[in-house]
């Protein structure tokens, strides 16, 4: 503890979101600071790097109007922390955790570091409880379980917003005796999208908290918002024993913010200009999902990201896919065929599905149904390529049956509009489809 306030007016340089302060007596990595601009604005900042008595500060907020001569910096002697309480539920905050719903900030004695701590792997419990999203392509074929992190890979212009809404409308846990909450995090969204999402959240049955960073809000807050959201989620899940679903949209904006800051720091660039540590950085967010032994609550994470140029090998989806437990991939082709949700199940995967399905969770033959659907549909899609070359007439009757199956599967099973389907409805539909075509 420092006994007196450490206030400096020894700024030596300002570039973008970065401020260099000289002649420091004492400073710690990660320490928070307040910058007071000449027009008396208070802006938060964090120490990123220290070299002798010079520190590099990253500013959370607009640096416009700062100058070298009059701007002051006060070091706070603490790491970035936020207060946490159940009272967060039902509230809306910005990326610095200030309320934006015209209500006063709540009080709490519970302060936590926003970066959190890694869960000890030996303390983790194996996620194994089914979550019903109401989407056939997810519930039936890429099942989500409590404590999983499952991203949605979207493309520009595809209805990821509507898919999230569809999930929010239905999402409940099969054994619904526990409290359930949604933490909705929006990074760099437009005001239009905001009102769309808020409408969906308000219609929901469960409690929610929203952290909103608008497209015109400071870029730095885009890096803070998911950390705040996950700290809140961890608190509710592991201290208040709730089942928490965290939705973060859009992670591509997060990665772009990361690149922007990294470039300003003149760091060495990795692929496509993204910093080399992006994998670790994303992992620090995504890995906060999970379950812990002897704790009832769970933290499930559903990040949404946009694949630049529809390219799944782009660093953003690529690194995400390496960390998360599967992915739900939207396809432009499905979308142009008027299928909603436009999920292409072939590149989709849920690594934890195995644990969440079967007797006692969904249905005994669930795995088998899903495998058969996959096999037939993949076959049908293969034949579609052949059809393009030799034409439908040149194909055998059996092959044509596969073609028809793939078509009907997309039209009737994947395509469900904005109607939620229960897991029984999904599985019955799958069985009915396979009986109709009798491909085995």
């Amino acid at each position, binding site marked *: 503890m420092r006994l007196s306030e450490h206030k400096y007016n020894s700024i030596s340089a300002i570039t973008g979101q970065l401020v260099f302060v000289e002649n*420091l007596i004492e400073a710690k990595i990660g320490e928070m600071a307040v910058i007071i601009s000449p027009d008396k604005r208070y802006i938060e900042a964090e120490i990123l790097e*220290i070299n002798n008595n010079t520190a590099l500060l990253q500013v959370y907020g607009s640096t416009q109007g700062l100058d070298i001569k009059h701007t002051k910096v006060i070091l706070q002697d603490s790491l970035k922390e936020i207060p946490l309480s159940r009272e967060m539920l039902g509230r809306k905050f910005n990326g610095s955790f200030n309320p934006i719903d015209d209500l006063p900030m709540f009080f709490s004695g519970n302060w936590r570091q926003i970066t959190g701590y890694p869960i000890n792997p*030996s303390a983790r419990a194996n996620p194994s409880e089914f979550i019903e999203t109401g989407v056939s392509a997810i519930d039936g074929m890429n099942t989500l379980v409590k404590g999983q992190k499952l991203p949605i890979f979207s493309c520009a212009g595809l209805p990821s917003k509507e898919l999230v809404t569809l999930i929010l409308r239905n999402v409940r846990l099969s054994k619904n005796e526990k409290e359930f909450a949604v933490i909705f995090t929006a990074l760099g969204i437009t005001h239009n999208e905001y009102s769309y999402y808020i409408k969906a959240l308000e219609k929901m049955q469960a409690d929610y908290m929203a952290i909103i960073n608008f497209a015109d809000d400071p870029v730095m807050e885009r890096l803070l918002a998911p950390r705040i959201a996950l700290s809140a989620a961890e608190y509710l899940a592991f201290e208040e024993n709730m089942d928490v679903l965290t939705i973060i949209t859009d992670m591509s904006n997060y990665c772009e913010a990361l690149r922007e800051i990294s470039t300003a720091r003149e760091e060495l660039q990795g*692929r496509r200009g993204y910093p*080399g540590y992006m994998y670790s950085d994303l992992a620090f967010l995504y890995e906060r999902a999970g379950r812990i032994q002897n704790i009832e609550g769970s933290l499930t994470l559903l990040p949404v990201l946009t694949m630049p140029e529809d390219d799944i090998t782009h660093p953003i989806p*690529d690194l995400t896919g390496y960390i998360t437990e599967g992915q739900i991939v939207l396809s432009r082709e499905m979308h142009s065929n008027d299928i909603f949700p436009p999920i292409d199940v072939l590149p989709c995967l849920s690594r934890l599905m195995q644990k969440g399905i079967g007797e006692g969770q969904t249905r005994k033959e669930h795995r088998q149904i899903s495998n058969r659907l996959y096999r037939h549909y993949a076959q049908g899609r293969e034949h579609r390529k052949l059809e393009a070359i030799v034409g439908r007439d040149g194909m055998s009757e059996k092959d044509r049956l596969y073609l028809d199956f793939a078509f009907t599967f997309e039209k009737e099973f994947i395509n469900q509009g904005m109607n939620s389907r229960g897991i029984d409805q999904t599985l019955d539909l799958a069985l009915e489809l396979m009986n109709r075509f009798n491909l085995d």
Partner: protein
Amino acid sequence: MKGSIVKICGPTVHTDLQGLRLYERVTVKKLTGEVVRLHSKGAVIQVYEDTRGLGIGDEVESLDIPLSVTLGPGMLSSIYDGLQRPLETLQEKTGPFIKTVDVTEVFEIFKFDKPFEFIPNKNIGDTITKGEILGKIKEGNFYHYIYSSKDIDSKIKSIITENITQDTSLITFENGETIKAYQSWPVRIPRPFKKKISTYEPLITGQRNIDFLFSLAKGGTAIIPGGFGTGKTILEQSIAKFADVDIVIYVGCGERGNEMAELLEEFRELKDQKTNKPLLERTVLVVNTSNMPVAAREASIFTAVTIAEYYRDNGYDVLLLADSISRWAEALREISTSLEEMPGEEGYPTYLVSRLAAYTERAGVTDCINGLSGSLTMILSVSPPGGDFTEPVTQALLRNTGVFLMLDTGLAHRRHFPAINWFQSYSLYQENLDDFFCEHFSNNWKTIRNRCREILKKEETLREVAEIVGISGMQDSDRLLLQTAEKIRTKFLAQNAYSEDAYSHPNETIKIIENILNEHEKILEKLTQGLSLNEAFKEKRANDLKTEKAGENKDETK
């Protein structure tokens, strides 16, 4: 020796402390670190924990020992972090989340729930020579052999056989020298051995793809590169479960925490086929998940290989599985960047290649100093960005490893698992292992494999033709070949890790492929006799029915 911090940059810290040695262990305000660079005014330290909260002027202290692990009985079924701290003990100290612990706190690295007992070969008054086995300690199904790594010119004064702890001196000599149950070894230095030997014995994995097409030798190295969702982890875990070895060391290097939870749970339940005891009792887990400190991730694979070498020195066949080496390379890159080193390809430091080469060279079959011989086999998974195999880590490993198992995204999307691409993958051990397979499992092993390869190769060209003229426009023999190839792919190469089929003994492996190929030859013969493909199949089905019925009749008459 004490000094203080002058600069902090990510996971590295600069100090003004002089007189340090390279790769020496230091404490930085109670955190563990390792010296990675020296200069005239001080040193640069790589810190193995979260550096947040460190400040200028904080104390740096020399410990005068290199980064090392402690080796001895009680490691099996443990789960360690990258610095060999037991995660279960850490959990008792800091709860379900990992928080920084004081480095001076003593950790019980070993499990002493069952007391160990020393069974000496020697008596009081005896003399010993270098490398001679002086006795053993039993841990589960395994023995730890106690020997001296140097000559001691004295007589044994006393021997302790019970209540062994981490500091027990088992044998004390008259001149005061002692031999301990536990030894410390620096992780970056390979453990010594008498010589490396080239024997050719396969490591049976129970995976048909590997055993039959791309066999792995004991003491060999294999890499499994694949994009996300291609099943690297599942394949590694299947191998960890079924591989015909004594000890498995599994390193989760920068991967998912939930996977480790799953592995722990499964390994507690599953039984080792050889001993019928839980798999965990032959396993040591070294875990540094993607959200644990980056520098410790860099150290984790060295911690693991040193533990593996220790069991090898006790005369066991050891398998080291690392998932994934790319995450290690990224950690190396991150540290290199914070040291402001000149970057090589894709930002990786230029010493990436030599570091990897030195690492994979720690595998092998060796005659150990104590006269025993053991083997250390490595299987390393690689996560190439964007599934692009031209990236530096894959390319560096390709130069030094013996088996390349390329995982194919296309196959994975079609749900063909393990998604090993049968054209691109290869094994350099094949030639030398064929004799073993022919001798132990089937004389035809080599010929059948070549025939199988031939059919798969032919299929590829035929598919191209089929796409132009359509299947119906092809010759009967070609259509037959396509059907057989499909059978090989779906019934032989695909192997479901979640079913009974997860393990396939070589006897079974050869039987399945032999049956598929025999049927192919039979029908091919019919075709040359002038029958059409449909007729040939019909006739075969009729024959099968007949033999089936004959079999049933026989049963009835019994």
